Protein backbone atom coordinates (compact mmCIF):
# COMPACT_ATOMS: atom_id res chain seq x y z
CA UNK A 1 0.00 0.00 0.00
CA UNK A 2 1.34 3.42 -0.78
CA UNK A 3 1.01 6.26 1.67
CA UNK A 4 -0.14 9.65 0.50
CA UNK A 5 0.43 9.17 -3.22
CA UNK A 6 0.76 12.36 -5.14
CA UNK A 7 -1.82 12.49 -7.84
CA UNK A 8 -1.84 15.07 -10.56
CA UNK A 9 -4.92 15.46 -12.69
CA UNK A 10 -4.48 17.08 -16.04
CA UNK A 11 -7.47 18.04 -18.07
CA UNK A 12 -9.35 20.97 -19.43
CA UNK A 13 -11.23 22.70 -16.66
CA UNK A 14 -14.49 22.70 -18.52
CA UNK A 15 -14.36 18.95 -19.02
CA UNK A 16 -13.26 18.07 -15.53
CA UNK A 17 -15.95 15.74 -14.33
CA UNK A 18 -13.96 13.62 -11.93
CA UNK A 19 -15.65 13.37 -8.58
CA UNK A 20 -13.06 14.94 -6.35
CA UNK A 21 -14.86 13.70 -3.24
CA UNK A 22 -13.30 10.32 -3.92
CA UNK A 23 -9.88 11.85 -3.51
CA UNK A 24 -10.99 13.44 -0.25
CA UNK A 25 -12.51 10.19 0.96
CA UNK A 26 -9.26 8.33 0.40
CA UNK A 27 -7.26 11.19 1.85
CA UNK A 28 -5.34 11.61 -1.35
CA UNK A 29 -3.59 14.78 -2.22
CA UNK A 30 -4.04 15.92 -5.75
CA UNK A 31 -3.49 18.91 -7.90
CA UNK A 32 -5.27 19.79 -11.05
CA UNK A 33 -3.71 21.34 -14.09
CA UNK A 34 -5.34 22.39 -17.27
CA UNK A 35 -2.23 22.50 -19.39
CA UNK A 36 -0.94 19.18 -20.65
CA UNK A 37 2.48 20.64 -21.33
CA UNK A 38 3.33 20.86 -17.61
CA UNK A 39 3.61 17.11 -17.45
CA UNK A 40 7.27 17.14 -18.40
CA UNK A 41 8.08 19.11 -15.28
CA UNK A 42 5.85 17.07 -13.03
CA UNK A 43 6.61 13.58 -14.11
CA UNK A 44 9.27 12.79 -11.57
CA UNK A 45 7.51 14.22 -8.54
CA UNK A 46 4.22 12.39 -8.55
CA UNK A 47 2.99 8.84 -8.25
CA UNK A 48 -0.07 8.88 -10.43
CA UNK A 49 -0.97 11.17 -13.27
CA UNK A 50 -4.51 11.21 -14.52
CA UNK A 51 -4.95 12.54 -18.02
CA UNK A 52 -8.54 13.46 -18.51
CA UNK A 53 -9.83 14.05 -22.02
CA UNK A 54 -6.37 15.18 -23.01
CA UNK A 55 -5.04 15.48 -26.49
CA UNK A 56 -1.99 13.24 -26.27
CA UNK A 57 -0.70 14.55 -29.58
CA UNK A 58 0.19 17.77 -27.77
CA UNK A 59 2.90 16.01 -25.79
CA UNK A 60 6.21 16.44 -27.58
CA UNK A 61 7.76 13.15 -26.66
CA UNK A 62 5.42 10.90 -24.79
CA UNK A 63 8.07 8.23 -24.37
CA UNK A 64 9.88 10.48 -21.90
CA UNK A 65 7.12 10.21 -19.33
CA UNK A 66 8.64 8.75 -16.23
CA UNK A 67 5.63 8.58 -13.98
CA UNK A 68 5.05 5.29 -12.17
CA UNK A 69 1.42 5.11 -13.23
CA UNK A 70 -0.44 7.05 -15.85
CA UNK A 71 -4.19 6.83 -15.99
CA UNK A 72 -5.83 7.97 -19.18
CA UNK A 73 -9.53 8.58 -19.22
CA UNK A 74 -10.36 8.62 -22.88
CA UNK A 75 -12.98 7.76 -25.40
CA UNK A 76 -13.38 4.17 -26.50
CA UNK A 77 -10.60 2.81 -28.63
CA UNK A 78 -6.90 2.61 -28.30
CA UNK A 79 -4.53 5.45 -29.06
CA UNK A 80 -1.31 4.26 -30.69
CA UNK A 81 0.75 7.06 -29.22
CA UNK A 82 -0.04 5.70 -25.78
CA UNK A 83 1.80 2.50 -26.58
CA UNK A 84 5.09 4.39 -26.22
CA UNK A 85 4.47 4.89 -22.50
CA UNK A 86 6.23 2.49 -20.16
CA UNK A 87 3.08 2.10 -18.16
CA UNK A 88 -0.49 3.24 -18.47
CA UNK A 89 -4.02 2.35 -17.66
CA UNK A 90 -6.78 3.37 -20.01
CA UNK A 91 -10.23 3.84 -18.60
CA UNK A 92 -13.23 4.60 -20.74
CA UNK A 93 -14.98 6.99 -18.43
CA UNK A 94 -14.86 8.71 -15.07
CA UNK A 95 -17.07 6.09 -13.44
CA UNK A 96 -14.26 3.58 -13.47
CA UNK A 97 -11.82 5.91 -11.77
CA UNK A 98 -13.26 5.43 -8.33
CA UNK A 99 -12.74 1.66 -8.37
CA UNK A 100 -9.35 2.19 -9.93
CA UNK A 101 -8.16 4.40 -7.08
CA UNK A 102 -9.15 1.72 -4.59
CA UNK A 103 -7.14 -0.82 -6.51
CA UNK A 104 -4.16 1.49 -6.75
CA UNK A 105 -3.93 1.98 -3.05
CA UNK A 106 -4.09 -1.72 -2.34
CA UNK A 107 -2.05 -3.06 -5.24
CA UNK A 108 -0.01 -0.11 -6.40
CA UNK A 109 3.05 -2.15 -7.31
CA UNK A 110 0.92 -4.41 -9.46
CA UNK A 111 0.27 -1.50 -11.80
CA UNK A 112 3.72 0.00 -12.03
CA UNK A 113 5.43 -1.00 -15.27
CA UNK A 114 2.25 -2.50 -16.65
CA UNK A 115 0.14 -1.40 -19.53
CA UNK A 116 -3.58 -1.87 -19.11
CA UNK A 117 -6.89 -1.15 -20.67
CA UNK A 118 -9.99 -1.52 -18.56
CA UNK A 119 -13.47 -1.41 -19.97
CA UNK A 120 -16.99 -2.54 -19.21
CA UNK A 121 -19.70 -3.69 -21.57
CA UNK A 122 -23.27 -4.83 -21.41
CA UNK A 123 -23.77 -8.51 -22.06
CA UNK A 124 -24.19 -9.58 -25.68
CA UNK A 125 -22.46 -11.83 -28.17
CA UNK A 126 -22.07 -8.95 -30.63
CA UNK A 127 -20.09 -7.00 -28.03
CA UNK A 128 -17.44 -9.69 -28.09
CA UNK A 129 -16.56 -8.94 -31.73
CA UNK A 130 -16.14 -5.23 -31.00
CA UNK A 131 -13.88 -5.85 -28.03
CA UNK A 132 -11.79 -8.42 -29.91
CA UNK A 133 -10.73 -5.54 -32.18
CA UNK A 134 -9.71 -3.56 -29.11
CA UNK A 135 -7.65 -6.50 -27.92
CA UNK A 136 -5.97 -6.80 -31.32
CA UNK A 137 -5.08 -3.09 -31.36
CA UNK A 138 -3.65 -3.33 -27.86
CA UNK A 139 -1.51 -6.34 -28.67
CA UNK A 140 -0.35 -5.19 -32.11
CA UNK A 141 0.85 -1.86 -30.73
CA UNK A 142 3.28 -3.58 -28.42
CA UNK A 143 4.10 -7.04 -29.66
CA UNK A 144 5.31 -8.47 -32.92
CA UNK A 145 3.35 -11.69 -33.17
CA UNK A 146 2.73 -14.06 -36.02
CA UNK A 147 -0.72 -15.26 -37.07
CA UNK A 148 -0.63 -18.33 -34.86
CA UNK A 149 0.23 -16.42 -31.70
CA UNK A 150 -2.41 -13.76 -32.30
CA UNK A 151 -4.97 -16.44 -33.05
CA UNK A 152 -4.19 -18.10 -29.74
CA UNK A 153 -4.76 -14.89 -27.77
CA UNK A 154 -7.95 -14.10 -29.66
CA UNK A 155 -9.47 -17.49 -29.12
CA UNK A 156 -8.74 -17.52 -25.38
CA UNK A 157 -10.29 -14.07 -25.08
CA UNK A 158 -13.35 -15.13 -27.09
CA UNK A 159 -13.85 -18.24 -24.97
CA UNK A 160 -13.58 -16.28 -21.72
CA UNK A 161 -16.04 -13.69 -22.95
CA UNK A 162 -18.45 -16.24 -24.38
CA UNK A 163 -18.49 -18.02 -21.03
CA UNK A 164 -19.15 -14.74 -19.24
CA UNK A 165 -22.03 -13.94 -21.61
CA UNK A 166 -23.61 -17.40 -21.71
CA UNK A 167 -22.91 -18.90 -18.32
CA UNK A 168 -22.01 -15.99 -16.09
CA UNK A 169 -24.55 -13.36 -17.06
CA UNK A 170 -26.92 -15.75 -18.89
CA UNK A 171 -27.37 -13.37 -21.84
CA UNK A 172 -28.90 -10.74 -19.57
CA UNK A 173 -28.20 -7.45 -21.38
CA UNK A 174 -28.62 -5.54 -18.15
CA UNK A 175 -25.65 -7.29 -16.63
CA UNK A 176 -22.13 -6.07 -17.14
CA UNK A 177 -18.83 -7.67 -17.97
CA UNK A 178 -15.65 -5.91 -16.89
CA UNK A 179 -12.49 -6.62 -18.83
CA UNK A 180 -8.92 -5.75 -17.98
CA UNK A 181 -6.15 -6.37 -20.48
CA UNK A 182 -2.65 -6.05 -19.09
CA UNK A 183 0.77 -6.46 -20.59
CA UNK A 184 3.98 -6.53 -18.59
CA UNK A 185 6.76 -4.07 -19.40
CA UNK A 186 8.94 -6.75 -20.97
CA UNK A 187 6.08 -7.66 -23.34
CA UNK A 188 6.47 -11.27 -22.32
CA UNK A 189 2.96 -11.95 -21.14
CA UNK A 190 -0.55 -10.70 -21.62
CA UNK A 191 -3.06 -11.01 -18.81
CA UNK A 192 -6.76 -11.11 -19.47
CA UNK A 193 -9.09 -10.55 -16.55
CA UNK A 194 -12.83 -10.98 -16.97
CA UNK A 195 -15.42 -10.31 -14.31
CA UNK A 196 -19.11 -11.01 -14.84
CA UNK A 197 -22.13 -10.73 -12.57
CA UNK A 198 -22.80 -14.42 -12.27
CA UNK A 199 -22.50 -16.65 -9.23
CA UNK A 200 -19.12 -18.01 -10.30
CA UNK A 201 -18.05 -21.57 -10.93
CA UNK A 202 -15.40 -24.10 -9.98
CA UNK A 203 -13.05 -23.98 -12.96
CA UNK A 204 -10.95 -26.97 -11.99
CA UNK A 205 -13.97 -29.16 -11.47
CA UNK A 206 -15.55 -28.03 -14.73
CA UNK A 207 -12.33 -28.68 -16.65
CA UNK A 208 -11.83 -32.09 -15.06
CA UNK A 209 -15.34 -33.02 -16.19
CA UNK A 210 -14.53 -32.34 -19.84
CA UNK A 211 -14.55 -35.66 -21.67
CA UNK A 212 -11.37 -35.10 -23.61
CA UNK A 213 -11.59 -38.50 -25.24
CA UNK A 214 -14.93 -37.76 -26.87
CA UNK A 215 -13.45 -36.11 -29.92
CA UNK A 216 -16.84 -35.63 -31.54
CA UNK A 217 -18.44 -33.92 -28.56
CA UNK A 218 -20.43 -30.79 -29.40
CA UNK A 219 -19.75 -29.01 -26.14
CA UNK A 220 -17.00 -28.36 -23.56
CA UNK A 221 -14.37 -27.23 -26.01
CA UNK A 222 -14.04 -23.71 -24.64
CA UNK A 223 -12.44 -24.66 -21.33
CA UNK A 224 -10.12 -27.01 -23.17
CA UNK A 225 -8.90 -24.16 -25.39
CA UNK A 226 -8.42 -21.77 -22.48
CA UNK A 227 -6.38 -24.39 -20.68
CA UNK A 228 -4.39 -25.34 -23.76
CA UNK A 229 -3.21 -21.82 -24.60
CA UNK A 230 -2.77 -20.25 -21.16
CA UNK A 231 0.30 -20.39 -18.93
CA UNK A 232 -1.72 -19.79 -15.81
CA UNK A 233 -5.41 -19.59 -14.94
CA UNK A 234 -6.92 -18.14 -11.80
CA UNK A 235 -10.64 -18.46 -11.26
CA UNK A 236 -12.22 -16.90 -8.20
CA UNK A 237 -16.00 -16.92 -8.07
CA UNK A 238 -17.09 -14.73 -11.00
CA UNK A 239 -13.61 -13.56 -11.97
CA UNK A 240 -11.25 -15.27 -14.38
CA UNK A 241 -7.68 -14.22 -14.95
CA UNK A 242 -5.44 -15.92 -17.47
CA UNK A 243 -1.82 -15.36 -18.36
CA UNK A 244 -0.77 -16.01 -21.94
CA UNK A 245 2.87 -16.06 -22.90
CA UNK A 246 3.78 -13.87 -25.84
CA UNK A 247 6.14 -15.68 -28.16
CA UNK A 248 7.59 -13.01 -30.36
CA UNK A 249 10.82 -12.70 -32.28
CA UNK A 250 11.68 -9.19 -31.19
CA UNK A 251 10.08 -6.44 -29.16
CA UNK A 252 8.60 -3.36 -30.86
Amino acid sequence: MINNPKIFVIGEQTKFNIDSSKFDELNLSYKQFSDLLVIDALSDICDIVILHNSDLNKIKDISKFDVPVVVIIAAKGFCKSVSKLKNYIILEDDNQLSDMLDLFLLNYNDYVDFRSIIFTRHTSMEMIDETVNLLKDFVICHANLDELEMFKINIVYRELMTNAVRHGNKFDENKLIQVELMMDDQIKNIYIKIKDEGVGFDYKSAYDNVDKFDELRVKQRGLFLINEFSEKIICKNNKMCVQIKLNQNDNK
Partner: protein
Amino acid sequence: MDVKVNENILELIANQNLVASNLEEQMNVTKTAIAENPNIEVVELNLEGVEEIDSLGINLVVGLYKQISSSNKKFLVTNTSRSIKNLFNLFKLNAYFEVK
Protein backbone atom coordinates in the same frame (compact mmCIF):
# COMPACT_ATOMS: atom_id res chain seq x y z
CA MET B 1 -22.78 -18.47 -45.79
CA ASP B 2 -23.05 -18.87 -49.57
CA VAL B 3 -24.19 -22.10 -51.21
CA LYS B 4 -23.01 -23.64 -54.48
CA VAL B 5 -24.11 -26.92 -55.97
CA ASN B 6 -21.91 -28.53 -58.58
CA GLU B 7 -23.08 -31.95 -59.76
CA ASN B 8 -22.97 -34.06 -56.61
CA ILE B 9 -21.05 -31.59 -54.44
CA LEU B 10 -22.70 -29.11 -52.13
CA GLU B 11 -20.24 -26.35 -51.32
CA LEU B 12 -20.96 -24.22 -48.26
CA ILE B 13 -18.82 -21.10 -48.45
CA ALA B 14 -18.43 -19.36 -45.10
CA ASN B 15 -18.10 -15.64 -45.72
CA GLN B 16 -17.74 -14.54 -42.14
CA ASN B 17 -16.05 -15.81 -39.01
CA LEU B 18 -17.51 -18.89 -37.35
CA VAL B 19 -17.94 -17.33 -33.94
CA ALA B 20 -20.72 -17.19 -31.40
CA SER B 21 -22.23 -13.91 -32.58
CA ASN B 22 -23.17 -15.13 -36.06
CA LEU B 23 -23.43 -18.91 -35.85
CA GLU B 24 -27.19 -19.12 -35.73
CA GLU B 25 -27.56 -17.45 -39.10
CA GLN B 26 -24.91 -19.65 -40.69
CA MET B 27 -26.42 -22.77 -39.17
CA ASN B 28 -29.83 -21.94 -40.64
CA VAL B 29 -28.39 -21.50 -44.12
CA THR B 30 -26.54 -24.78 -43.78
CA LYS B 31 -29.59 -26.72 -42.64
CA THR B 32 -31.69 -25.35 -45.48
CA ALA B 33 -29.03 -26.10 -48.08
CA ILE B 34 -28.67 -29.70 -46.97
CA ALA B 35 -32.42 -30.24 -46.81
CA GLU B 36 -32.88 -28.80 -50.29
CA ASN B 37 -30.18 -31.02 -51.83
CA PRO B 38 -30.84 -34.54 -50.60
CA ASN B 39 -29.08 -36.22 -53.51
CA ILE B 40 -25.63 -34.71 -53.13
CA GLU B 41 -22.83 -37.06 -52.17
CA VAL B 42 -20.25 -34.64 -50.88
CA VAL B 43 -20.53 -31.62 -48.62
CA GLU B 44 -17.58 -29.25 -48.69
CA LEU B 45 -17.29 -26.54 -46.06
CA ASN B 46 -15.15 -23.82 -47.59
CA LEU B 47 -13.60 -21.59 -44.93
CA GLU B 48 -11.88 -19.14 -47.28
CA GLY B 49 -13.63 -16.16 -45.64
CA VAL B 50 -12.93 -17.30 -42.11
CA GLU B 51 -10.14 -15.76 -40.06
CA GLU B 52 -11.51 -16.65 -36.66
CA ILE B 53 -13.35 -19.60 -35.23
CA ASP B 54 -14.28 -20.29 -31.63
CA SER B 55 -15.34 -23.42 -29.77
CA LEU B 56 -18.96 -22.94 -30.80
CA GLY B 57 -17.85 -22.70 -34.42
CA ILE B 58 -15.94 -25.96 -34.01
CA ASN B 59 -19.08 -27.49 -32.54
CA LEU B 60 -21.03 -26.36 -35.59
CA VAL B 61 -18.53 -28.06 -37.90
CA VAL B 62 -18.57 -31.25 -35.84
CA GLY B 63 -22.37 -31.24 -35.79
CA LEU B 64 -22.36 -30.83 -39.55
CA TYR B 65 -19.95 -33.71 -39.96
CA LYS B 66 -22.08 -35.97 -37.79
CA GLN B 67 -25.20 -35.12 -39.76
CA ILE B 68 -23.52 -35.64 -43.13
CA SER B 69 -21.73 -38.83 -42.22
CA SER B 70 -24.88 -40.35 -40.73
CA SER B 71 -26.39 -40.32 -44.21
CA ASN B 72 -23.27 -41.86 -45.71
CA LYS B 73 -22.13 -38.74 -47.47
CA LYS B 74 -18.61 -37.38 -47.51
CA PHE B 75 -17.67 -34.26 -45.58
CA LEU B 76 -14.55 -32.15 -45.91
CA VAL B 77 -13.30 -28.74 -44.87
CA THR B 78 -11.26 -26.67 -47.30
CA ASN B 79 -9.35 -23.39 -47.58
CA THR B 80 -8.52 -23.22 -43.90
CA SER B 81 -5.93 -20.81 -42.57
CA ARG B 82 -2.88 -22.29 -40.88
CA SER B 83 -4.28 -21.39 -37.46
CA ILE B 84 -7.66 -22.96 -38.09
CA LYS B 85 -6.12 -26.09 -39.53
CA ASN B 86 -3.97 -26.40 -36.40
CA LEU B 87 -7.08 -26.05 -34.29
CA PHE B 88 -8.83 -28.89 -36.07
CA ASN B 89 -5.70 -30.99 -35.60
CA LEU B 90 -5.58 -30.07 -31.91
CA PHE B 91 -9.03 -31.57 -31.52
CA LYS B 92 -7.96 -34.54 -33.66
CA LEU B 93 -10.83 -33.87 -36.04
CA ASN B 94 -8.58 -34.52 -39.02
CA ALA B 95 -8.96 -38.18 -38.10
CA TYR B 96 -12.65 -37.96 -39.02
CA PHE B 97 -12.76 -35.68 -42.02
CA GLU B 98 -10.30 -34.11 -44.40
CA VAL B 99 -9.10 -30.64 -43.49
CA LYS B 100 -7.27 -28.84 -46.31
